[in-house]
């Protein structure tokens, strides 16, 4: 459980400090993984499979999120030279 908290904190730190979009997405992955770990730890604590089912859902969501996010990055990379979220603030709809 503490491990989940520590991993989540690390992911959050990464999300806040890194500017590269790839690293941002990786930090989001770490945070999702940490929350999944918390679910599994709860499932272990109470001896029920519900938490593990939740982890499967988190897994599916992470897969969808990563695919869309990476597609966005590719599209963004064709327009801007650098994958930097500071540049992205100049985007005009």
């Amino acid at each position, binding site marked *: 459980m503490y*491990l989940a908290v*520590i*991993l989540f904190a*690390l*992911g959050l*730190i*990464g999300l806040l*400090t*890194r500017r*590269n979009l*790839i*690293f941002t*997405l*990786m*930090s989001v*992955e*770490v945070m999702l*993984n940490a929350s999944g*770990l918390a679910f*599994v*730890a709860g*499932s*272990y604590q109470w*001896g029920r*499979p*519900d938490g*593990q*089912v939740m*982890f*499967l*859902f988190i*897994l*599916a*969501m*992470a*897969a*969808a*999120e*990563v*695919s*869309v996010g*990476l*597609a*966005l*990055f*590719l*599209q963004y*990379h*064709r*327009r801007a030279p650098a*994958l930097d979220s500071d540049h992205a603030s100049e985007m005009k709809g």
Partner: protein
Amino acid sequence: MLIAFYMSAAVAVLATMVAITRRHAIHALLYLIVSLLAVAVVFYIIGAPFLAAMELIIYAGAIMVLFLFVVMMLNIGENATEVESLWLKPQVWAWPSGLATFLVIELMYVAFHSARPSGQMHVTTPKEIGIALFGPYALGVELASFLLMSGLVGAYHVGRRASREEEQYSAGTDGRRVVSGSNLVRAGSDRTSHAA
């Protein structure tokens, strides 16, 4: 068992810490994979072997490979050979492989020592998970399939290059553009042609 848990937890935290501080994206990905492996070992230890397998297959297998593909697609440039020679240095892969070897040793230890019945720990079998998944959580399964489907379509739509027809189309006059085609597609191809 407890020692194994804390050790793999330490590996996970260490690898994640290194992963978010690397400058090179692929190094960070390697460390992230090690971190995911460590979390999979933790899952195995706390009685969820099915989820450990899922974590390996989907996270470390599929999602990380997706990351790797994108990073490699984006990094194709003039410094490719330079990066390649950088890769062959031992200190680049020594630490991740060292941590991963540690996890393998730990997993062997756990696998050989958990042959005997280990206390009152409840090991969740895939059958239990499946029963829970398609019993009370059937709606959630449907929602997850919706999400994956929309993710697939969205990733395809966002990630494709503008097709030749659309480029010609957006190069045409404004009057022609107003006549037909969906607004979304036109806006996207418009922007692409401007950037190019």
